[in-house]
């Protein structure tokens, strides 16, 4: 630091000792932003302000509370649910849990992919990536399944096109134009290749 600057800073510190040695203190504070807390009187006009300041009013203090309140506690493990469909189990557990969901049992190719994924522990990144890949395969399977049951899925309806039409018609037109341009471009390119 050159001598002139050092002398300027020293003089400023002497003029403003309450700045505790911070040079250009005033310029560091943006007074427009530095709004301070409302007064206690103002705060107390907020319904319920401070009513849970006392920790004994806080339901999650302490975080781990034994014994639990508010629940009907039964001794021992819950009765084991009968397994009627294939349910995967994390390798990081000793076995299936007493309770489990039976929605959408695994099937088709996505089911096989999930079966492989559940051979890997949750700690292995491949477990999750395989499940995500299976989800995308399952999406295609869903369309095939719809068609197999004689149901042509209303894909645009499922995506909420009626809401889009009502609440964002300009956006819908823009998206339609972009889609048309992209599809048209691809078709034009294909036709051009055929000419050669």
């Amino acid at each position: 630091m050159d001598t002139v600057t050092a002398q300027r800073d020293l003089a400023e510190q002497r003029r403003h000792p309450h700045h505790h040695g911070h040079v250009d203190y005033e310029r560091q504070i943006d007074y427009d932003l530095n709004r301070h807390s409302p007064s206690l009187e103002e705060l107390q006009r907020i319904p319920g302000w401070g009513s849970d300041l006392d920790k004994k009013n806080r339901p999650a203090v302490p975080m781990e509370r034994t014994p639990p309140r508010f629940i009907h506690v039964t001794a021992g493990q819950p009765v084991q649910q009968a397994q009627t469909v294939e349910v995967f189990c994390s390798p990081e557990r000793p076995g299936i849990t007493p309770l489990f969901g039976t929605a959408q049992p695994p099937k088709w190719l996505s089911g096989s992919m999930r079966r492989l994924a559940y051979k890997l522990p949750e700690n292995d990144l491949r477990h999750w990536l395989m499940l995500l890949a299976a989800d995308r395969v399952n999406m295609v399977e869903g369309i095939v399944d719809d068609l197999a049951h004689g149901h042509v899925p209303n894909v645009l309806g499922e995506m909420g096109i009626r809401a889009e039409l009502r609440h964002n018609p300009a956006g819908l037109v823009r998206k339609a134009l972009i889609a048309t341009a992209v599809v048209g471009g691809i078709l034009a390119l294909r036709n051009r290749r055929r000419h050669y």
Partner: protein
Amino acid sequence: MLATNYRGPYRIRASQKPDPVIEHPGDAIVRVTRACICGSDLHLYHGLVPDTRIGHTFGHEFVGIVEEVGSAVETLKPGDRVLVPFNLFCGSCFFCQRELYSNCHNTNPEATAVGGIYGYSHTTGGYDGGQAEYVRVPMADVGPYKIPEDIVDDDAVLLTDALPTGYQAAEMGDIKQGDTVVVFGAGPVGIFAAKSAWLFGAGRVIVVDHVEYRLDFVRRYARCEIINFREVGDVALHIKKMTDWLGADVCIDAVGCEASGSLAQTITGRWTMLQAGAATALFWAINSVRKAGNVSIVGVYGPTFNAVPIGNALNKGITMRMNQAAVKRHVPHLIEHIRQGHLNPKEIITHRVPLEEVSDAYHIFSSKYDNCIKTVLIPPRAGSARATATSVIH
């Protein structure tokens, strides 16, 4: 019965499915009268949660009437009006005995890192959810909570997740009197976290988002300051300027994996899925909190990994607390707050939609059209509640 039916990313419809049945002596079947769409349902809807299978029925925020009970159920009977916490929990495992209901070890065979959750993929146990006319409710003596007569269903349905999660977010922040609390996210959970921060004696509450109508709502509803991060340049710098250059005492991440605001996080987290979602809000929370401050996380992230400045967290001596809300431990206390007028959760409901229009309801909520904050789906067999449903497409 009519139920939501997931068909792939951004595709969902309402269609007929078999009615649920009692599969365990502790089960109940509940006729749903209201089911909310939660911000975290959008992670499923956008295809970001692993093992979300085609045909899955979403919905973990619902209330209803008990229709049938299993042979072992002692405390519930048909006709009881119940709110059902989003966590499935047994009440007796190592974690439930410590009131850590969201970490129950007996309800999710598919993963150990998360407990069972209604309608939230097979990663959380493979249970169909409550965006349907009927739903299977396991451990009926433990999970559901009978709704007191003076609590209306519109308040009760928000006690199943959004309000307890916002409240627990504020509680995990360990707010002290006069603290400056910054909440990232002005969705329903962020709104309730801001509102709850005052109950813990905060001196300032600041909410950060970029959706103007939501910021406007939270400013009025929770009497807080707001920041539109699109307008202030660097968020952490702006918050430092607002807090005497120290940083906020407490930062709450109420956004999770679909955050906006950082191109790098969006590309790696949302578009290419190289990380478990965009951790923008958490990144900002760590960099905006003061040294030795508290960061509380309730925003949902995926199971793999995220790019966050953990070195800054270490060097700043931050305390970080996070969990899915243990809903049931909060419910009685929050009911008292509602009775005393401290909290009025139903005011955040903006849309009551017939279940048949679920495709459009999801699209409106996801796209933030029509000033949407909280959407409630009302099934055809919801009884008198059905009369309050309004079409969003006509």
